[in-house]
């Protein structure tokens, strides 16, 4: 059914259709409408919505609900996202699928509650301590706020990991018409078929795309943030530590092509604009519908893992690569890692809470 939805509403509806039946959060601008939509619609779909006392409790309670077998999510913005970092690391270490939606506003600190930027890109990768497998998706319009929510849940369930979906104030509050399907398809975890006595929660054969148990089924599960063995109990033995770290890394390394998701427009043109999220809105004005344009465009739908190899190939021999982002150059830094000295890099940034305009890009060029 066609609806005029804001990005936040589309995200919440997508999560409900994908089977999310537990939402815990602490409302914060500009993500509040997600919690609002969940509060009024989750009970009607047989799920639970809880407004928690803070973001620390929100992330931990969705991990708990997911460990009990329920697809779970939270939504927040910068300050709340900072508070959730420890919990995100815990979700990764315990391999508990969760969806965290971060609707970016201006930072640092409480910053600009009602204005959008894209300053949390690096935080989604490095915000929680340790070498954590990070998966971050980013939506450019209301349609993608819907479709990438579904995909985030699918990835989280398949890989047994937290997935972060980045929206920003622009996408969250703009309304566009989208076609809401009656149902969506996502991977749903399967119960293991072993005898509960023989079940090992972190067995090598169940790293991703494989059945695993949840609390309440009668299987023995031990969850801890401490580095642990296959049975979930803590270890200090080097070999077992190496095993756990490799296991986490394999979730990403083995699934790179599944995770990679970029939009490519006119890659044959001399110069390329790289962007993501709402940064693509002004960028596409320069690329689409202009046959004379000297610019192609690459847009990251999946930001982490970063598509280093694909971009290296696509950017080889380009004269100029322009990175359009509403931060001070977070993706630009990644692009510099894979381009040679022959390619000039130009960053177009804006951090005052307004969307970069097409004219600003034209002038900078």
């Amino acid at each position: 059914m066609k609806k005029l939805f804001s990005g936040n509403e589309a995200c919440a509806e997508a999560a409900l259709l994908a089977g999310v039946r537990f939402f815990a959060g602490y409302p914060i601008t500009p993500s509040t409408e997600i919690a609002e939509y969940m509060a009024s619609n989750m009970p009607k779909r047989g799920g639970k919505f809880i407004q928690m006392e803070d973001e620390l409790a929100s992330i931990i309670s969705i991990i708990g609900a997911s460990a009990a077998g329920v697809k779970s999510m939270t939504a927040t913005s910068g300050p709340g996202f900072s508070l959730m970092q420890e919990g995100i690391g815990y979700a990764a270490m315990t391999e508990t699928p969760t969806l965290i939606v971060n609707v970016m506003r201006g930072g640092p600190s409480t910053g600009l509650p009602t204005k959008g930027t894209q300053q949390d890109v690096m935080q989604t990768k490095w915000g929680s301590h340790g070498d954590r497998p990070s998966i971050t998706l980013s939506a450019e319009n209301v349609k993608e706020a819907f479709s990438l929510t579904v995909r985030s849940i699918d990835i989280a369930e398949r890989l047994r990991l937290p997935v972060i979906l980045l929206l920003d104030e622009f996408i969250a509050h703009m309304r566009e018409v989208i076609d809401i399907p009656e149902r969506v398809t996502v991977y749903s975890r399967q119960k293991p078929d072993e005898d509960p006595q023989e079940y090992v929660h972190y067995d090598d054969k169940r790293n991703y795309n494989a059945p695993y148990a949840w609390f309440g089924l009668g299987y023995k599960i031990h969850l801890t943030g401490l580095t642990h063995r296959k049975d979930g109990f803590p270890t200090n033995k080097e070999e077992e530590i190496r095993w756990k770290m490799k296991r986490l890394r394999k979730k990403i390394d083995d699934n790179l092509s599944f995770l990679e998701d970029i939009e490519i427009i006119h890659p044959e043109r001399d110069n390329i604009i790289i962007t993501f999220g709402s940064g693509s809105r002004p960028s596409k004005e320069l690329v689409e519908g202009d046959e004379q344009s000297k610019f192609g465009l690459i847009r990251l739908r999946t930001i982490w893992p970063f598509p280093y190899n694909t971009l290296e190939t696509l950017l080889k021999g380009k004269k100029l690569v322009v990175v359009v982002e509403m931060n001070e150059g977070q993706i630009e830094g990644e692009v510099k890692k894979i381009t040679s000295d022959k390619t000039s890099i130009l960053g177009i940034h804006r951090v005052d809470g307004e969307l970069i305009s097409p004219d600003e890009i034209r002038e900078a060029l």
Partner: protein
Amino acid sequence: MRKEIRITGTGGQGIILAGIIVAEASGLFEGKNVVQTQAYGPEARGGASRSEVIISDEPIYFPHATNPDVLIMMSFEGYYKFHSHIHKNTVKIGDSFFLGLVQDLEKDIILLPFTETARKVLGKALFSNIIMLGAMSKITNIIGIEALKKAVSDRVPERYINENMKAVDLGIELAEKWKSEHSS
């Protein structure tokens, strides 16, 4: 065809709702691409409020109005803040109750008594936004009356549908009256 509509006024006048109704009329019932945005946050509380709709047959990338084709001013503050951000063919429509002061200064603003009509005929000033939408549709033809009426009845509480339909018709009448006075 890309049309940019900017609706300005004061918080509480239903400016954002008016934008949503235009977007739904065009996007859901006339099959156009639409993007609706609004000024959000402290600046929209009590002070100047702004809602924008972009309507196009092509995909819409940049979501904000840069040079509106239609500027609606439902309060003096809306006029004061936005009347200069226009192009030479912008259709400017204002509420005469709030913009009466500039009547002699701004000959090309179409001043219509939205608030006055809402109060006199429907007993409440809050219908002024719907009356305005009726007038805007009639004057600019950017959205059709059919689609507008469908969008209005989908968005307003059921017990107020009749009054809102009446409000649309009042707006159309105001526009027709203005047109007949200005066709020469």
